Each structure stands twice: as C-alpha cells, then as structure tokens.
C-alpha cells in the first residue's frame, strides 16, 4: 500500500471531492494553516477557481454565507484556519447552522463543513491554540469529526462533505507531516466508528487528534517495560462510538483518556462520564484524564509543553492506572 503525508491525503480528498461534486465550494483559508506546502492549495485554486471564495476577514459573515449556501443546495467547506477563530462565528455556527434542521421540523438541511486547526501548535499562545470541540460538543445538531492519520483525514473528509448535517472538521497542524498508509481506492470512513490504532491488553488509552500520535509513541515506550497499551481513536465525537471503547475496557479494565481540550467539561470529561455510566463494573481502577491544564495557553515553549497531554504525562497516567 502506498504511503502519503497527512497533508497529501487531505488534499487528495479535497481534489477528489471537488472533482466529483460541483456543489462543493471552498470558502476562506488554505486548509493548511501556516504549513510550507502552500503549492498544494494553489493547485486546487487553479483547478477550481470558480468554486473558491476568499472572503474578507469576517468569520461571522462568511460562516453565515456558507450556512445559507448549504440551505440552498451547495456543499460548502469553510476553513476557519485557527480553531479559536470560530468564536467570531459562534452565532452562525452554534445558533443558526446547528439549529436549522431541528427547528424547521426536519425540513431544512445544512450540509456545511466548518474546518479548523485546533490545539497547541508551538507558540500559538492563548488566542491561537484553542480547542473549541468540547464547547461544540455541547451544541446538539453539529457532527464533530477529528482525524489523526492520513487514511482517516481522507476518508472522514469525504464523509463530512457527504453528510447532510453541519459538520465540524477538527484538524491539527502537527498532523500535517505525519506519514501513513492510504489505499488507492479508499472509501469514505463512516461516522461513529472508532479505530483501534494499537492493540494491547493492559490499559485502554482513548486519544483524539494529534494526541493519538503522542499516545502511540507513549505506548511504544511502555511496551519496552512490558506494558501493552490499546490505543483507541473515536475518530468522530458526534456520533460517538462507545461500543468499541467499552469492549476494549472489558479486556483491559483500565482507561486513560488523552486529549488536548481543557480538562473541565472537556472531551475527556465527557468520554469518562460515558464510560463510567455504562462500564463502571468493568473498571478496576479510576478513569484518568490527561487533558490540557485549565489555564489560558502560555506562549513560552516550556510553559506550553507543560500544560499539554504530553508523552510523559500519558505514561505517568498509564503507570498510575496499573499501580
């Protein structure tokens, strides 16, 4: 099977999606953040000039435009670039797009994708390192997709555009250079199907986005000490595949959840609650969260590294669960 960089798989998906469906328009951004691989986006810009709109710096305005266009039958993909910028568009995303289908009594569909780069990116400081997916998970009506590998970004992006619901596509700049296998004839990856990224028998480590990669590295190190960690990647938060996680817990009886949202009311908190509610009898140790500490993200490299779900913190949590 061929190997691709994450950004290559993502752009292959965008290219195939746009070639196959005239309703798809790209709005704002480059889908690359500050990555040096700008030429990939420029290729798309040339090929699909008529269907790419570079709007003014008006997140509220262009997220509303995309939502309205989706109501009228287009399938826009909006790049909010830095995840924290979605706060500028909150009324349109959380109060218009998310509610339209339900409050119209199931009549108005909003097939829009809001793409963003979340999380600690190295020097992003407090205003450019946000992980808004936890807040968005508290808004019924939004699907939330959060890939962690080249194969997943391609398959999930295809499903996100095919979805008839507003979908938040949560990306991470630290994933862009990750390499991995991607099949030639890969199919869309359905929502709500978790992926076991590493098989293990001692501890279940649920991780999302870039933290999946950190978790895999931690798991390799722990394996040298004879600890076999099973890494489970939910891949979508909405819908959420609790079944796969619970069957892993049935085997390991121990769970760590590692994720870059802030700890309080974060993604790890919600996953922990769901596991505890239905899988409490399977647990032999308390569920542990490795989240970003509850402080605004500081700038200096050492400070930033200190608050995130690092390899060291994940390994400590795994060891604590087995102690």
């Amino acid at each position, binding site marked *: 099977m061929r190997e691709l960089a994450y950004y290559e798989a993502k752009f292959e998906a965008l290219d195939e999606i746009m070639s196959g469906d005239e309703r798809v328009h790209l709005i704002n951004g480059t889908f690359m953040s500050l990555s040096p691989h700008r030429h990939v986006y420029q290729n798309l810009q040339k090929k699909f000039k008529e269907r790419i709109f570079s709007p003014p710096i008006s997140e509220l*305005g262009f997220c509303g435009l995309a939502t309205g266009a989706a109501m009228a039958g287009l399938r826009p993909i909006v790049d909010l670039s830095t995840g924290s910028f979605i706060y500028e568009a909150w009324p349109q995303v959380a109060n218009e797009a998310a509610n339209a289908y339900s409050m119209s*009594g199931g009549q108005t569909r909003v097939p829009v994708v809001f793409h963003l780069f979340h999380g600690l990116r190295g020097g992003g400081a407090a205003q450019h390192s946000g992980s808004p997916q936890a807040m968005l998970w508290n808004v019924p009506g939004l699907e939330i997709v959060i890939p962690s590998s080249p194969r997943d970004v391609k398959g999930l992006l295809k499903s996100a555009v095919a979805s008839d619901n507003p979908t938040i596509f949560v990306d991470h700049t630290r994933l862009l250079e990750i390499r991995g296998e991607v099949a030639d004839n890969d199919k869309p990856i359905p929502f709500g199907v978790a992926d076991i990224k590493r098989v293990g028998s001692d501890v279940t480590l649920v991780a999302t986005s870039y933290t999946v990669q950190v978790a895999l590295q931690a798991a390799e190190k722990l394996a040298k000490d004879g600890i076999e960690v099973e890494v489970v990647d939910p891949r979508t938060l909405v819908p959420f595949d609790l079944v796969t996680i619970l069957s892993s817990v049935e085997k390991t009886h121990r769970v760590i959840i590692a994720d870059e949202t802030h700890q309080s009311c974060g993604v790890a908190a919600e996953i922990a609650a769901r596991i505890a509610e239905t899988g409490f009898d399977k647990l032999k140790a308390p569920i542990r969260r490795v989240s970003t500490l509850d402080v605004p993200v500081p700038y200096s490299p050492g400070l930033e590294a200190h608050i995130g779900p690092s390899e060291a913190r994940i390994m400590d949590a795994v060891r604590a669960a087995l102690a």
Partner: protein
Amino acid sequence: MFVIRHFEENLVGLHGKGVFGGHYHLYVGQEATGVPALACLDADDYLFTTHRNHGHLLARGAEPKKLFAEILGRVDGLNKGKGGSFHSVAPGLGFLHSSGVVAGIIPLSTGTAYASKAQKNGRLTVCLFGDGSLEEGAAPEAFNIASLLKLPVLFLCENNGKYGEGRAVAAAQSGSMAAYPLTDLPKAYKIPAQQIDGIDAGLVHATISEAVEKIRRGEGPQFVEAQTVRYPGSATNWPTVPAPTDTTLAWDVSQVPENAREWYRSADPLLVYVRELVEANQAKREEIAALESQVKSAIAAAVDFAVNSPYPKPEEAERDFFAKSPL
C-alpha cells in the same frame, strides 16, 4: 392585509387565554410593506425573516391554520411544533429558516444569494429584518460580502419606529444607533439604499419592483428602509390589541381608546389602504366590509383547527435533530 391583521389580533386573544406560552411579535402596522413587497417576487425566490415573521409567511401564502398550529406548538404546525412563533418556516414558499436572533439571517441571506449565483438559477433572496438588526456586527459583515460579490439579495429593513418608539429613528440619531439615516450604513459598502414610507402600499410596490428588477439585471444588492409607525399594541413587552380592527375605523376612530387613536387615524396601513380604495372608487365600503367578514370567518376556522390539533408526543423531542446521512 386583512388576513395578517385578523390573524395577529386573534393570536393576542389566544395568548390572553393561555393557549400558548412563548413570547411572540406582531406584524400589525407593517402590512403595507410586506404584502406589496412580497408580491414583487417570483415563486422560487428565497426569503429570510425574523421573530416578526407571521405577516411575511401569510403574505406569501402560508396557511393561517398551520401557522396558528405552529405557534400553539401542535403537530400540524408548519414546523411540527419544533419552531414556534420565532422560527416558523415554509420551504415550499422560499422560507428556509427564520431566526429569532437579531441579524442572524443577514449573513444567511448572502449564502442563498451566493448559491443562486453559483447555480445560475436566477433566484433572488429577500432578507427582511428590523432596524435593530443594524446594531449587530453581522449586518455590516454581510453588506460588505454582498457588495463585493454583487450578490442577488434585497435587504428590506422594516423600521417600525419612525418616530423612535422602537430603536432607530428615521431621521435622527437614536439612543442605540449613531448612524443616521440608517441608509448610510449600506451606502458605506456601496449598496444603493433608499428610505420610503412603509405605510404607502403603492409606493412600496413600485420601489421594491424596481429594486428587484435591478437585482435580476445583475446590479448586485439593494437596500430599502420602509418606515412605519409602531403599533400601539406593540408598545409593551407583551402585545395587546388597543381596538379590534374593523373597516368602520377607517372613517371613525371615536371608539378607539384615546392613547391609541392617532395611530388608527393616520398610521394604520390597513385603514389607510381601505380609505384609498374607497376614495379612488376602486371598491365600495360594503364590499370591503364583506371581504373582511369572510376573512374573520376563515381566521376563526383556522384558530379552531389549531386549537384542536394535538401536541406532538414528548418523545418527538428526541427525533429529527439530525438529517439522515447517506453513510
């Protein structure tokens, strides 16, 4: 105009009896804006409206019984009881989404217009909002985008507080809006904008027809501010009916409570229109009275339908908040 007026007055009565509980907003006093303006549109055009949507939906042909049922939270409502007064829609009539968030629809209206342009289908979008919407940042962001892209959208601002009973004043700075006239705002983004008397049905029709034509010719967005005088029944937080409408009021307002009398005498667009028709010999008083009586009966039947429509089953609350996706 009669349908809207008697719909709204009946709604106040239903709320008074406790038949529904949510907040709601009346279109009374603005009929001569919405009715002629919407008559200028094609069947497949898009419309976005706000919490003050009843008049727009009815003017476009929504069934009063289904709108009543929606506001009463019943299964036969336009949105099956999921939306209520604020969010009533009728996709078949072009109303895809009605937002109760001030200015929420203004960016959305640029979206349907953007789609129409991409799909080259000639469909126009009309965005109907109140003067307060211009206080939100969403308005200028959307004006900027609409103007840059020359989108086929008509921004129809219904200023129902010409003399400042609402938020913006027609011709002066108000406590909530430094810019005046309001048309200065769209004009800053190079959107042609004009202020008109929203009580004058003929003027509204002529102005909107012309604006719609320009948009269809590809000239880009247009902005019209239609000014009306706030209905005294909308003066308080919860609507009231100072005097039930009857065509006889067109010539004699002595039965109207004194504090509301001036509005019925000079600013009620329905009564103004009735007088115009009679004075121009286009209709006789008795003919208009007969028509009004028919409308009253039809509205009574619609109320009856809605009151007897069942509430949705509680478990419906957990259904239909996601569209079924193909995967």
